């Protein structure tokens, strides 16, 4: 089978262009055949190892995940060969670029030409167990097959697009590790894109689960990239285990879905859920079994783990131990949106549950608020960005919960661009200032020669995150969610929480910008200064030595006078410039297509479509037709249309936040450290301290869960030694005590045992025979 695949890949490589042509035609045909709701299954060669011949149309899309997988394999090979060049990076950029081009082809075929009619592309059979016969024949089937609709395309476009750009950025950022961890980094990077593609493109819940755990593994490997640093190892472990808690929920949800619907494939599940959807639309909620309502609740647990929502968000801020490109790609732009994707993909099931979407909405809103309050009090700029990611993910979930899946989808897309850019800008600072991330020790970076592009990119990113009115994409996407919340008569409270959070977000975002990039030029390098001399910047491995030799810290201070920040090179600058331009270009997407823009259209074409009825609306006593979509069901915001009112109100709130940051952190500031805000901190009393300590959530978990479990495990260990094994030992003594007479036979010599045993067996058989004969 593997040989098949290997033979098949080069045959493609020769004629990708021709294949693309083929693919496009075949898909067009398939899409035309397909009814607008049924998937166009194109699996002619679906036998064992059934990779069909080239020219099978949609099979071309299989290359989108396979190219990064190939990249991973080659990087592994290069690592084994101890290659000491930037080859892995260039190869990754090329392969991911090709993957992006194929994604664009796929987008063109499926979304533009096919109007989002789902296409199923079968690669090969993964798991199949069958039983029963006749009518009761059932099988558990999970294939390597891809379900491609507009939602898939929306996600894959930014996954592969940003993946390519960030790989280019990382080629420079990771250059100090060339020959050491460079291959390892890019192998995991490629594996990540492969897993993410499986997650997003999989046609069944189990392939999604494969991708889900796969991205978790890559996240683990990349957070722990600097593996000599204990904090990085701990953070990696924490990320994996916390994610696993969510994964258990997801796995149980998948099992429940299988046991109830008899299939793992989306197309079958949604088809079988059809009667329930009809019942829900007619307001007959009693016809929907509790089991069906439970499935989304379990899936949601997985989503909250992967997307860092309450109560499982604690791993994401720690994940910043990884190299910054990883933080940008995995922990900001792509992987953490997997939970949002899952909810959007399974949206029909979520709509069936009376409780699932309200829980999603409330969790999202509360996470958004909590993370924003923590973000306001942090000093590490990368951590601030991490909390802002948690917070923005909260917005996306809230968007899904208040039934504006289109807004959530658009926010995922815009957020991916501007958050990646923010992280990459922070990374450039970290790279150039020897690991310095403390906003109290950096000031006026934008005025340092060579830092103009970074500073501009940062400004664009901050404007987006803060939701600066009209000219930023972040404003438009956030606005859709806020508008949706206020327009939903059940979710007004969510709207208020999100509105307050918008103000806080604008404040903490520009707190970073005004302190680090504006103001007087003054900076202090980080503790990786010594690394300049020998093997590059080495963010890795030097921690123990750095601590051991106390001379370093003082040396760092001494040299900070003549420390010259290391300005970013062309790769970093290019990537930041491209991202800055795209972040603006994304605004255009709001104004093409339908009345809510292109991304909304993409979501509307997919399973995440909201068709004007959700179980919790129906349960609230609203008859069919008076849901959110009907104009009559629109809640008003102080007498105004919620969507229009929000455009004004959220813009004002954002500006207030920025103004507050300007006043507290910029106006009149003469040095890096002193800002008016610092004087405020003592006045706030313990609250500021609590926020700085992240509301002690980590400590709480440690106290309530980890410690008791540790104690319990030790008790178990003791029980095992004393009680379980002790009992056995006591039983063992009895014959020994009795057998004192027979001691000579217990010689411990093996031959005796062997002979004795054979004799024993013979004796037993003899007894049995005699007994039965007599």
């Amino acid at each position, binding site marked *: 089978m593997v040989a098949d695949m290997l033979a098949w890949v080069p045959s493609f490589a020769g004629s990708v262009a021709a294949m693309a042509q083929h693919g496009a035609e075949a898909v067009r045909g398939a899409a035309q055949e397909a009814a607008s709701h049924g998937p166009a299954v194109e699996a002619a060669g679906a036998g064992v190892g059934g990779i069909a011949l080239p020219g099978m149309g949609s099979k071309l899309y299989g290359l989108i995940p396979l190219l990064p997988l190939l990249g991973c394999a080659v990087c592994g090979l290069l690592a084994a060969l101890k290659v000491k060049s930037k080859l892995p990076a260039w190869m990754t950029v090329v392969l991911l670029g090709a993957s992006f081009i194929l994604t664009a082809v796929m987008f063109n075929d499926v979304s533009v030409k096919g109007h989002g009619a789902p296409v199923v592309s079968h690669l090969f*059979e993964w*798991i199949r*167990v069958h039983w029963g016969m006749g009518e009761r024949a059932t099988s558990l089937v999970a294939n390597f097959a891809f379900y491609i609709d507009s939602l898939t395309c929306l996600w894959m476009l930014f996954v592969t697009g940003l993946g390519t750009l960030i790989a280019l950025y990382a080629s420079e950022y990771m250059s100090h590790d060339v020959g050491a961890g460079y291959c390892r980094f890019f192998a995991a990077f490629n594996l990540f894109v492969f897993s993410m593609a499986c997650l997003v493109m999989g046609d069944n819940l189990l392939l999604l689960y494969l991708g889900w755990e796969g991205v978790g593994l890559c996240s683990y490997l990349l957070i722990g990239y600097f*593996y000599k640093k204990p904090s990085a190892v701990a953070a990696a472990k924490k990320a994996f285990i916390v994610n696993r808690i969510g994964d258990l929920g997801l796995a149980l949800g998948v099992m429940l879905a299988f*046991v109830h619907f008899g299939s793992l494939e989306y197309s079958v599940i949604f088809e079988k859920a059809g009667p329930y959807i009809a019942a829900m639309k007619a307001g007959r909620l009693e016809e929907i079994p509790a089991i069906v309502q439970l499935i989304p609740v379990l899936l949601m647990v997985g989503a909250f783990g992967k997307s860092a929502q309450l109560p499982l968000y604690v791993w994401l801020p720690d994940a910043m131990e990884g190299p910054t490109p990883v933080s940008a790609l995995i922990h900001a732009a792509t992987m953490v949106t997997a939970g949002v994707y899952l909810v959007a993909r399974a949206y029909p099931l979520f709509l069936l549950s009376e409780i699932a979407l309200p829980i999603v909405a409330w969790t999202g809103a509360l996470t958004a608020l909590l993370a924003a309050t923590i973000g306001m009090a942090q000093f590490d700029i990368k951590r601030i960005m991490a909390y802002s990611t948690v917070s923005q993910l909260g917005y996306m979930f809230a968007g899904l919960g208040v039934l504006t899946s289109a807004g959530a989808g658009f926010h995922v897309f815009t957020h991916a661009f501007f958050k990646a850019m923010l992280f990459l800008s922070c990374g450039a600072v970290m790279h150039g200032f020897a690991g310095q991330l403390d906003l109290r020790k950096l000031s006026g970076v934008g005025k340092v020669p060579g830092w103009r592009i970074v500073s501009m990119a940062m400004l664009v990113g901050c404007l987006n995150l803060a939701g600066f009115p009209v000219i930023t994409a972040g404003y438009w996407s956030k606005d859709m969610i806020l508008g949706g919340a206020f327009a939903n008569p059940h979710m007004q409270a969510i709207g208020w929480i999100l509105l307050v959070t918008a103000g806080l977000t604008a404040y903490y975002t520009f707190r970073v910008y005004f302190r680090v990039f504006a103001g007087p030029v003054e900076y202090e390098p980080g503790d990786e200064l010594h690394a300049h001399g020998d093997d590059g910047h080495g963010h890795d491995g030097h921690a123990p030595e750095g601590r051991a030799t106390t001379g370093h810290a003082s040396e760092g201070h001494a040299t900070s006078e003549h420390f010259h920040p290391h300005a970013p090179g062309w790769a970093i600058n290019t990537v930041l410039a491209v991202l800055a331009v795209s972040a603006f270009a994304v605004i255009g997407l709001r104004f093409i297509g339908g009345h809510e823009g292109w991304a909304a259209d993409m979501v509307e074409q997919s399973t995440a479509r909201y068709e004007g009825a959700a179980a919790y609306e129906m349960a609230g006593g609203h008859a069919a037709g008076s849901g959110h979509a009907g104009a009559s069901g629109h809640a008003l915001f102080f007498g105004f249309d919620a969507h229009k009112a929000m455009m004004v109100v959220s813009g004002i709130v954002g500006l207030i936040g920025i103004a507050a940051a300007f006043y507290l952190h910029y106006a009149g500031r003469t040095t890096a450290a002193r800002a008016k805000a610092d004087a405020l901190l003592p006045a706030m009393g313990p609250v500021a301290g609590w926020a700085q300590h992240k509301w002690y959530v980590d400590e709480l978990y440690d106290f309530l869960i980890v410690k008791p479990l540790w104690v319990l*495990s030790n008790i*178990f*260990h003791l029980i095992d030694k004393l009680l*379980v094994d002790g009992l056995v030992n006591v039983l*063992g003594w009895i014959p020994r005590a009795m057998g004192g007479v027979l001691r000579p036979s217990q010689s411990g010599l093996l031959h005796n045992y062997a002979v004795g045993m054979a004799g024993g067996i013979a004796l037993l058989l003899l007894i049995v025979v005699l007994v039965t004969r007599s």
Partner: protein
Amino acid sequence: MNELYLFLLMVIPLAAAGVVALGPAGREKSVSMAAMLLCGVITLLLLLAFDWTRAATMQFEASVAWLPRLGLSLSVGVDSVALLLIALTALLGPICVACSYTAITERVRTYYAWLLVLQSAMFGVFAARDLVLFYIAFEFTLVPMYVLIALYGSTNRKKAATKFFLYTFTGSMIALAGLVYVAWHAAEMRKGWSFDIATLELAARTLPASAQGWVLAALLAGFAVKVPLFPLHTWLPLAHTEAPTAGSVILAGVLLKLGTYGIYRFAIPFAPAAFAEYAPAISAVCIVGILYGGLICWVQTDVKKLVAYSSVAHLGFCILGMAALNTAGLSGSIMYMINHGLSTGALFLLIGMIYERYHTRNMKELGGLAAKMPVWATFMVFFAMASVGLPGLNGFVSEFLCLIGAFQADGRWGAGSMGSGLWGSGGAAVPGATWGSLGPWYAGVAGVGMIVAAMYLLYMVGRVVFGPLVEPAGHGHEAHGSESHAAPGHGSESHAAPGHGSESRATTGHGSESRATTERVHGVLPADLNLREILTLAPLAVLCLGLGVYPTPVLEAINGPVQKTAYMVEDAVKPRLAGERAPAGVRPVFDLGGHEATNPDGTKPKEGEVIGQ
């Protein structure tokens, strides 16, 4: 010729053992390697010659009359399940020889001879179609294993070996009582002795309900010790920790599977209705084992003990799947046997490689080895992930199937798959829904084991593979001197090491002891893995990946026997249910392609029936 293959598998290692024990010195390694590889080739031929379309039927059957008057014969034969386990044994054979090349330096002859005898006995267990042959082979695995632990183990080896022997021997004596009882019952029925397993299976159907319960109890007592199921597991950590690497690999890889295989081959067929009745209780014990074993792993400091306890947790999943008694669960369970052998076997190999270099298994003395041994570290992370059950690697498929089997087992018997109906979609009340019903709570609580597995395995990886480099005393300076000669490529990396020598917490007495042996070993072994070591791991890694990405061929191969077992249990349960709850209905007649038809009276015509009359 095909008929001879199975006998050859048993004879070749025995003959080779004789050659090793009596032949010229210095040839032990090559002779045993050749014998193991020859067995591997024969297994390959068997795999090729096997008719996979009739996987549920015994193939390569052969029988040699032994004591016909007593119904004793040496008969062999395999279905796909037994054949796959033979393949696992054959694969681990050469690996065990290869991993002992430098580890065993004294009494080499005895070592390899017993290793070969053990191999022969293990083949015998899986190939046997005769109860006596099975039991002799089953018990005879104890002796070589006892020697391997008692002579070649580490400090506490005598105690561990004796405990291993006595504990499992006691268990199997009880199992023997159960087996003999079934044979006696068959003899009563048929007016003549037969130990043919197929004949006994049929005869066991007529066992009265209470007797079935006792048979089950006896068989479980023997096989559960071997698996081992909580709370009968305490011999395992001790035996594993003390055993030499090859011993641990075989113990985890194959010997524990004798228990699970015994349950699959004897406990279920000999007492199907009783097994179904007690399935919830058996599952509960498994779940306790999963969580209890997993949490104990988490607080270990001895890395080998950690992996040993993980077997308790892992095989809990395996038996949970078996207790589901439906196709998904049983398939998962059998896959689990193979997968656990591959991934846990590999973990023991990896730990053995560390032990050979550092002479410690204490995680407080080891740390951050990725810096020094990148190849080893890569394998370690890989196999740890396979063990965690990462999708895409082998462990996931079996774990998921076991859990989904348990989830599905709602006590609705029908179509060879308990609970194939749409779960939770209402419908008529199920008669006897308590029989064998597990359901989502079992799967959910057992699923917590997935989190615990991540906790302890990542704790181990985080400790040993990652973090700052920590090496035991005596390995900072001396070791590096000799090592940089052996592997010049690692010279630059070893600079970091001396600083950590003083950090280690080894007692000085131990330090001097290990220093003495260090010099010898480090003359042979480079800092990172050598080619031989990589080659012992590579096949396991390839299979872990292969079975994770493409498990369908194996699942298809075992589907026949598994469905047959599921139908058989259902056939046995239905009349009992009917007698208990409702008037007896018409017994369904199943005729599945490739499987024997079931007569209305619940008996099956079998080829093997001639034997022993």
